[in-house]
């Protein structure tokens, strides 16, 4: 066991995924509470053509440039969703499914073009961005995750109060001079930084889990926003550590899916055991009934 814990690869991957999942827990809380958790899923899928496109244009398979392409396509996807839901009767549900699948389709079409074209060498790694290949993470990948997460967290801290008020009461936040477009852009930036840098670790298809599950776990354990955030962040990091350990120790277990199953395990436990959970709910209700007003 000590072999695994001290191996360089393990440390690199564990640090990277833990930072990522911690930030994901915080960033995801915003969209989960706004009832827009699946936007992350659509953006996650939509990053795939961005990765392939930037490979085609720049010609190297280097994490930073690929992440840049991912961010650009993610932003286009986000605004397409906004435009469709705002200017037609199509619901968010429909718009998400449409954007998610058509952008991913574009990615596949581009991918088949790249693979069939001898001008592009070294396309092998591109597929890793669909499911993630944490085992191949380099220290440069981890630096990128750390820098992106630091920016995300910094933005979160600077605009903490605005974010809180905006989620709770958007109309009130406008009347006290908080700009709605600015807030949407801010939330998008915080989220997309996590998604774009997390692709190599977790992959485009599953990345949304580290945005939703920690947030839900946090909400199950606390009624206070800062505590929800911290519980979310730490359960994300714990799952990242566990998942990375399992995948390093076991054979043929991909890291991304292992992290997500660890997170799911924490979530299932929380659904039953947390103060609001199924097992303790009866007791909780009784308590509420007792000190009712009047």
């Amino acid at each position: 066991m000590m072999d695994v814990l001290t191996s360089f690869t393990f440390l690199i991957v564990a640090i990277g995924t833990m930072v990522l999942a911690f930030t994901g827990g915080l960033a995801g809380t915003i969209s989960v509470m706004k009832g827009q958790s699946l936007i992350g899923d659509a953006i996650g899928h939509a990053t795939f053509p961005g990765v392939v496109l930037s490979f085609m244009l720049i010609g190297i398979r280097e994490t930073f440039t690929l992440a840049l392409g991912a961010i650009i396509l993610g932003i286009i996807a986000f605004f397409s969703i906004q435009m469709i839901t705002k200017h037609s009767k199509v619901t968010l549900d429909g718009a998400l499914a449409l954007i998610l699948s058509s952008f991913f389709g574009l990615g596949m079409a581009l991918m088949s073009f790249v693979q069939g074209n001898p001008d592009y060498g070294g396309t092998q790694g591109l597929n890793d961005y669909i499911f993630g290949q944490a085992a191949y993470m380099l220290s440069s990948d981890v630096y990128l995750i750390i820098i992106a997460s630091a920016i995300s967290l910094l933005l979160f801290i600077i605009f903490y109060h605005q974010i809180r008020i905006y989620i709770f009461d958007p109309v009130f936040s406008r009347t006290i001079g908080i700009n709605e477009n600015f807030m949407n852009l801010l939330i998008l930036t915080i989220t997309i930084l996590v998604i774009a840098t997390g692709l190599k670790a977790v992959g485009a298809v599953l990345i949304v889990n580290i945005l939703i599950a920690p947030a839900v776990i946090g909400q199950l354990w606390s009624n206070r926003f800062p505590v929800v955030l911290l519980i979310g962040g730490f359960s994300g990091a714990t799952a990242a550590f566990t998942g990375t350990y399992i995948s390093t120790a076991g054979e043929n277990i991909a890291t991304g899916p292992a992290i997500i199953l660890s997170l799911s395990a924490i979530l299932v436990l929380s659904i039953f055991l947390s103060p609001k959970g199924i097992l303790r709910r009866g007791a909780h209700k009784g308590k509420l009934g007792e000190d009712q007003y009047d």
Partner: protein
Amino acid sequence: MIEVLLVLIVTALATSLLGVFLVLRSLAMTTDAISHTILLGIVLAFFITNDLRSPWLILGASIAGVLTVYIIEVLSKTRLIRPDASIGIVFTALFAAAIILISKYAADVHLDTGIVLMGEVIFAPFTRTEIFSWSIPSALLQMSIILLINLLFIIIFYKELKVSSFDPKFAFIAGFSTTLIYYILMTLVSVTAVTAFDAVGSILVINFFVAPALTAYLLVKRLATMIWCSMLFAVINSVSGYFIGITYDLSIAGVTSFVAFITFIIVFLLNPNGFVSRKIRSLNQKREFNRAMILMLMNEESHQSLTKSEIISHFHFNAGKFDKHMKYLIFNNYVTRTNEHYTLTELGEEYTHYTREKYDLPV
């Protein structure tokens, strides 16, 4: 190669048919979840049968699909987790389990995640079935049967589907079991999705389900028309996707999905009630408001004769805007100008009555 196109079209028809109801009931992302989690059903069934062509795989997939819907519903009903978050959690967890099982225990067999996820319709004709001494691609036969089943389902339950899509409460009162219809629908979605796997893969199949239906939704109001329209778009997208894909040697399913997006956007922008015509209409409306406002102002007793600068300062117009409006009003004989003063004509006064009538304003 025509067989590839046929498989693609039949798949698109079978999926888009159900897609109409998925769109109307806002089940698109639930369907996306199913299309991922049936992979787990396939894997588990494969472990039992050890045969990739076994019909038990379809059964396993369907059970996984329906189970997904059920878990999402149970989670949402605890009111601990929002429905959209439940979808996101459940499908990723089950899908992650499937990937681990495949990579750990089935890495050596043909159950390759790549193919299952991406699908490739181009390979469809390689697996063939003999029927009445005709050799046709198995996928074509399977998808045709599914298309037939979906068609029958919609014909038989048309009334129930219609009512429960538009007004679930009424359906409940009228005594339909909306739950039963819902679960039959979702079972068919699972069966259709797993059958379509080979051709289009699990991520893109959602596009085949909902994109044509969403496009049709923008255009038409009646359910029957929406179904026809959706099927028409399904065919258009598939044919264009096929030819572009063949010509440039690209993933046909991928191209078809993106073409479906382009079709949607074109309809979104250009349909009679679409983005462009709405913008034009609201500009026209604004112009009409402004003209009516000028006339209504001049209809007030204290403002019967006004100069340009008075009107401009009253409404905060700029001079160019004022000139444009006034030119129109004078040309149409609503307003006359004597020296520097503008006054209302009889026609103009009539127009203010019409305006009050139109916008339901008190006299």
